[in-house]
């Protein structure tokens, strides 16, 4: 079975999230416009976009905190709507950008409150397991107000794990954290992935999405693109080779123009050339032969890599251009 966003979902394995034309308007302002996508069970899905793109609004809609203006969605197998609100919230967990802990209460007391709200049987062992999962078992009695921002974020994650959720929504989980704390949160997300938890991660940190996510959606009020990071790169950028020679080529046009798989080329410095090619694996040996034939000394021939940041900037720039027209 194929779904709206192109994710292959096998029969009998319904997706964790299925969103069809979800729209949210606040008065005249459209925060989310016709969002359609699908997230498979066990997937770590990155939802990228600039500030004010509508990422948090999307999470709030899927978390049943706010009602969509139009469109539909299925969250953890249940149709999004007021009738299923309690049951959906029982099956998911949401960690907002700020963990929102009761700072006068201890870590354990915070988790006890939420264990009660989820109606968990045997809350003590669930709390213990959640704290162990985030390496906080020894800090259960600490007052939350005394914890560092990174530790508070860990408690927020422990809280998100209490109910063994089918889908975890993490809204900018590393926002404002230092590199060490960020690394710890990334490791925890990796752990969740190994356990098969579906994660919907909103972020504007591109390296975070690239490192953690199976697929990413680039979103700015509307869905700009969705796919694996390498797919997005291939889709958006032509295949390119970066050629470096020891000395400047005397007649580069003659060398590169003679190779059938080279579509175009440009000089990228004194002795570097960027070649747009039909296929890198075919083109690389052909270009090497042409250079050797021309008497050039080759330093390197490599596939030009584009980061997710390039993809993101390309799509966001397109948005800016459209908005300026």
């Amino acid at each position, binding site marked *: 079975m194929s779904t709206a966003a192109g994710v292959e979902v096998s029969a009998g394995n319904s997706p964790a999230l299925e969103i069809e034309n979800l729209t949210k308007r*606040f008065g005249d302002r459209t925060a989310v416009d016709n969002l359609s996508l699908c997230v498979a069970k066990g997937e770590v899905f990155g939802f990228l976009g600039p500030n004010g793109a509508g990422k948090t609004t999307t999470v*709030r809609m899927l*978390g*049943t*905190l*706010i*009602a969509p203006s139009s469109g539909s969605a299925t969250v953890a197998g249940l149709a999004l709507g007021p009738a299923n609100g*309690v*049951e959906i*919230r*029982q099956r*998911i*967990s*949401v*960690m*907002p950008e*700020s*963990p*929102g*802990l*009761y*700072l*006068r*209460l201890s870590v354990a*007391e915070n988790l*006890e*409150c*939420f*264990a*009660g*709200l*989820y*109606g968990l049987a045997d809350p003590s062992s669930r709390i213990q397991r959640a704290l162990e999962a985030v390496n906080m078992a020894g800090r259960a009695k600490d007052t939350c107000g005394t914890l560092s921002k990174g530790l508070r974020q860990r408690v*927020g994650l422990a*809280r998100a794990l209490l109910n063994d959720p089918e889908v975890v929504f993490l809204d900018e989980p590393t926002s404002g954290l230092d590199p060490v704390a960020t690394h710890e949160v990334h490791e925890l997300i990796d752990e969740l992935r190994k356990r098969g938890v579906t994660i919907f991660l909103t972020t504007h940190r591109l390296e975070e999405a690239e490192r953690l996510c199976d697929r990413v959606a680039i979103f700015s009020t509307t869905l700009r693109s969705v796919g694996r990071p390498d797919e997005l790169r291939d889709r958006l950028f032509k295949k390119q080779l970066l050629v470096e020679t020891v000395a400047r080529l005397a007649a580069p046009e003659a060398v590169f123009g003679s190779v059938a798989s080279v579509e175009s080329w440009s000089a990228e410095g004194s002795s570097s050339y960027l070649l747009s090619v039909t296929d890198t694996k075919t083109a690389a040996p052909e270009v090497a032969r042409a250079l050797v034939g021309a008497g050039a000394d080759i330093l390197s021939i490599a596939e030009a890599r584009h980061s997710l940041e390039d993809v993101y900037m390309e799509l966001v720039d397109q948005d800016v251009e459209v908005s300026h027209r």
Partner: protein
Amino acid sequence: MKPNMSMARVRAIARKEFRDYRRNRFVVFTMAVAPVVFVTWALISILAIAAAEPSSALDTSVGLTMLFLLLVPATVPATISAYSVVGEREQGTLEPVLTTPVTNGEFLVGKALAALVPTLAISYAIFGLVLACVELFAHPAVSSAVFRAPLLLALALFTPLIAGWSILVGIAVSARSRDVRVAQQIATLASFPAVGVTALMSFGVIPQSLAVALGLAAGLLLIDSLGWRVVSAMFDRERLVTRS
């Protein structure tokens, strides 16, 4: 109360509130200061009543004392219930709570109970203390003016109803307010009208009788029930999380 209301979730909300009160000196202070003032005032008033006072003056003095006592359930919960929603919103704790299966009703009942239980405990403890002092130290004429069934019934019945009104007003203001201090000021002022009806009874404007006490209690109960519906309708998750 809806049949599918989870008492476990209500308890979780109320228990969290109790824990928070214990660690918050401001809450303990605001809960303690008004009852101390009112009980002191009430005791001084009642013990100062001269035995030779004419019966109408005696009734007025006793009525005034009872009014002080009923200010306790009006004022004690106003501050804490006014904090209940806007305080969580300011701390950033409201959104995580609302993403759990807790319903609006469960959340509000938990918050209301957390304000009602200490209020009733404090109020009835103060009534007991004042009545014991009257029995032990006041003139027998004053004592007999105080220990009258309609008056004691009014105290017993009106206490939870006045507290209920004060809590409902506090939560309603809190659900619509953007600032804790403003919410607490408005809620405290808005809690006083409920005492008005008992004031009329205390001062004899409305005749003191068992039937009148029961009738007024029924009226307050009706107002509280209607107030509950209004508060439930005012609790709008979307508005609260988007701050629109």
